């Protein structure tokens, strides 16, 4: 029984303990330097408690359903010459190797150039447009490049009709999203457009809408944290789509193609990531534009910069240099080969999965040579910077505690604890592909910057 929570000097906590009363001591430390005033302003904002409660509740209420899969040109109206990418806005000049490589490959896929190498000049000349996935109700893993012919999952929130989108996952190794654009990469993408996409469409449109949020609930109890480990989720997706695909008639009756589709999906442990991500975005978008809320609604990296958006600051991005992940490398690759952090996949951590759900996927912690207790401690530590827990996504080993959900900019500044992200590492040079996987955090300075903007809005409103 805790009678007193003591934050500050130990003498006063001791004095309470001396009276045989229960004391819980907060391990208080000074906040990130320079944030005291902004923290107080935001803490005392009369709108904040209700706004944060509303933001968290809105996020937790969303039930994502898979309703369609179609080319980006159709679902987003994306035209040839326009490309989406991961992270906050960026120009070709600032783009990192893997983002450039993915854009070059996509340009070749769309037939805008014959040889991917020819695309660099066209991008540099400004012939093509670059826009963030996040600005088009979409998310993309790693480089996150989307071009019109790529097929995209369409997820819908039945309550509001809102939708989010994500491309189909290519697998690991030499793949476009890691910046590879060799002929086999382009060939695989064409097969995905011509065979995989249409077959999945049969499965999706001729089945009951797949409950993606529900699959996330189950996979968290099966050792997936839905960012670097999506094995159970991938197989459950196949389970839900296969009956309709097997029953298919007419154009989609080629059993050899179907076998290849099933083999491709089943062999790709990350296939479900591209459904987990838009499900997370669908949930977080429900929390956007709530004045006074300090909750983070997006964390995304473009390979050069790491950006966050908050519920209380509209479309504004707060950005800083993306960090290089700490982890293990494939083959001969080492830290010097790795590109800084890239991808919209940190949307999973933003929603309480990935690094935040580390405790449910102990294998992931070994990416940085950690231990199972580290995994448990990480999830518990993330609870220090989140507004609440997701009762739907519970972690058996933590006695079914919900995943820590709703990152609070203010709590990050108060504690100096940064969100922990599980991630893959792309090679720094265009065309290389994946070089490793590991753990990374956002650049620390973007949280005080977001806090300052929130505090400025509060001051403008309260005065």
């Amino acid at each position, binding site marked *: 029984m805790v009678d007193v929570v003591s934050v500050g000097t130990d003498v006063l906590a001791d*004095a309470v303990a*001396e009276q045989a009363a229960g004391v819980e001591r907060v391990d208080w430390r000074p906040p990130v330097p320079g944030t005291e005033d902004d923290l*107080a302003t935001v803490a005392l904002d009369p709108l904040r408690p209700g706004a944060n409660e509303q933001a968290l509740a809105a996020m937790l209420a969303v039930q994502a359903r898979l309703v369609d899969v179609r080319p980006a040109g159709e679902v987003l109206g994306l035209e040839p010459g326009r490309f989406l990418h991961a992270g906050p806005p960026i120009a070709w000049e600032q783009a990192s190797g893997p983002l450039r490589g993915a854009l070059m490959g996509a340009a070749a896929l769309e037939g805008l150039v014959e040889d991917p190498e020819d695309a660099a000049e066209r991008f540099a000349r400004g012939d093509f447009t670059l826009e963030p996935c996040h600005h088009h109700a979409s998310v993309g893993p790693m480089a996150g490049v989307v071009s019109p012919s790529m097929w995209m999952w369409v997820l819908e929130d039945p309550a509001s009709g809102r939708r989010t989108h994500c491309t189909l996952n290519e697998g690991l190794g030499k793949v476009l999203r890691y910046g590879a654009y060799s002929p086999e990469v382009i060939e695989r993408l064409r097969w995905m457009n011509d065979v995989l996409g249409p077959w999945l469409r049969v499965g999706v449109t001729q089945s009951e809408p797949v409950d993606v949020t529900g699959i996330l609930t189950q996979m968290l109890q099966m050792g997936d944290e839905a960012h670097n480990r999506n094995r159970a989720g991938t197989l459950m997706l196949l389970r839900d789509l296969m009956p309709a695909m097997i029953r298919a008639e007419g154009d989609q009756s080629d059993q050899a193609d179907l076998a290849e589709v099933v083999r491709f999906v089943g062999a790709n442990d990350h296939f479900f990531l591209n459904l987990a991500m838009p499900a997370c975005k669908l949930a977080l978008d429900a929390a956007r534009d709530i004045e006074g809320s300090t909750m983070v609604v997006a964390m995304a990296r473009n390979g050069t910069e790491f950006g966050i958006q908050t519920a209380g600051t509209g479309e504004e991005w707060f950005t800083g240099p993306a960090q290089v992940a700490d982890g293990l490398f494939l083959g001969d690759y080492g830290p010097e080969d790795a590109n800084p952090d890239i991808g919209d996949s940190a949307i999973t951590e933003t929603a309480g999965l990935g690094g935040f759900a580390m405790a449910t996927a102990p294998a992931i912690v070994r990416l940085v*040579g950690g231990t199972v207790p580290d995994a448990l401690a990480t999830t518990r530590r993330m609870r220090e910077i989140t507004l609440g827990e997701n009762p739907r996504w519970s972690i058996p080993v933590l006695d079914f505690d919900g995943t820590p959900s709703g990152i609070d900019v203010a709590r990050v500044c108060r504690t100096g604890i940064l969100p922990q992200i599980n991630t893959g590492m792309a090679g720094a040079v265009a065309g290389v592909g994946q070089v490793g996987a590991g753990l990374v955090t956002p650049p620390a300075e973007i949280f005080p910057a977001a806090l300052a903007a929130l505090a400025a809005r509060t001051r403008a409103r309260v005065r």
Partner: protein
Amino acid sequence: MSTHVEVRPGAYADSVALLQVSREVQQVAGVAAAQVAMATALNLEVLAKMGFDLPASTPNDMVVAIRLDDDAALGAALAAVETALTRRSRSTETATEPHRTTATALLDAPGAIVLVSTPGASAAVEAMDALAAGHDVMLFSDNVPVAHEVALKTYAAQHGLLVMGPDCGTAVVDGLGLGFANAVEPGPVGIVAASGTGCQQVLCLLDHAGVGVTHALGVGGRDLSAEIGGAATREALRRLDADPAVERIVVVSKPPAPEVAADLEQYAAGLGTPVSWALLGAGRLDLTAASEDLLAEKPTWPVDGQARPSAGPVRGYYVGGTLAAEARQILDEGAEVIDFGDDEYTRGRAHPMIDPTLRLERIAEVGDGVLLLDVVLGHGAEPDPAERLAPAVRAAVERGVAVVVACVGTRHDPQHRERQVAALVEVGAEVHLSHAGAARRALEVSRG
């Protein structure tokens, strides 16, 4: 330079484990490169790029591939593979890290009161965590901006919560002392106090008179100012009125701003429990007189020891701010009264009720007249104040200085008032329970 490639059919470990194994083997002396992996197409590609000859295998096999700078290292490298593969997970302590914010600490503490003593600039942030989660707060922190206090108390008033403070040194909630609080028996009196040591003096006098106190709710020194408007006082009155154990309420404070006084008096008049006002300051009651007003019969306040007359100035050296203020009210104008708990003496130092060093230094400089001191006991205060004060008093008495002490405490306090008094009397001090009594006595002694 040589290579070793072997296939282990049917052996399995997950890819993350194998990355770890590979890294450990790479660190063995004499190993140039190593890769231990399941023989998937991707991994075989990686191995080929590293220059290994690929053996016949299926994706269900494990491949161990090692390139050696020193052929003799093969045994050590393979041993490292075995060690890494068979390592059992370390059973590390799973001790939970402490919470870093009040908000998260409260997840494990339903119904707890929150005691905030961080630096003033951060206090409102922690206090707001408590209020937002529906908990009362005691704000021990000083240097909290007025605007923060207004915002906290406005929120608290809207939600029926109590903010005790800021700069609230003392509270007793349901018998539990918070901050610097004396151990008293529960009883019919409830105190609302804008002053910490003022509250302690009243607690101790009532305790001596055999009257118990169930709650002493602090409100912070600024609560009855026009800016704050008595928000916490009002809530504290409401709480005390609602508690059937409280038969009588006393408010201990400097005189409120006139509009606040009128407002609160009207509020108090509507309560079922009688409220009396111990308003301190020039031309008003002292704490002892205010306490006597609560009692049916005026008791004789205890005095131990006897100071010898010593003509000269009275110097009042204090740890308690309200006691110092009371001394200024009672002593002649021009008497030197220092409050060692004032900001000027506490920057970068603990409160003198915890660290008496500065006052002891000053006492050692006095060579004539009368020294008037307070010793404040209770939870949170130093464990044995007489231990360091008695030698200083003895030295002062030996220099011809008369020493009069107000020892504010009860027999239940962890420092044991009797023991503190005995130690001080033994070295020549005259010790009072009533501070006003001590101050008047100091005046008398100083006249020779």
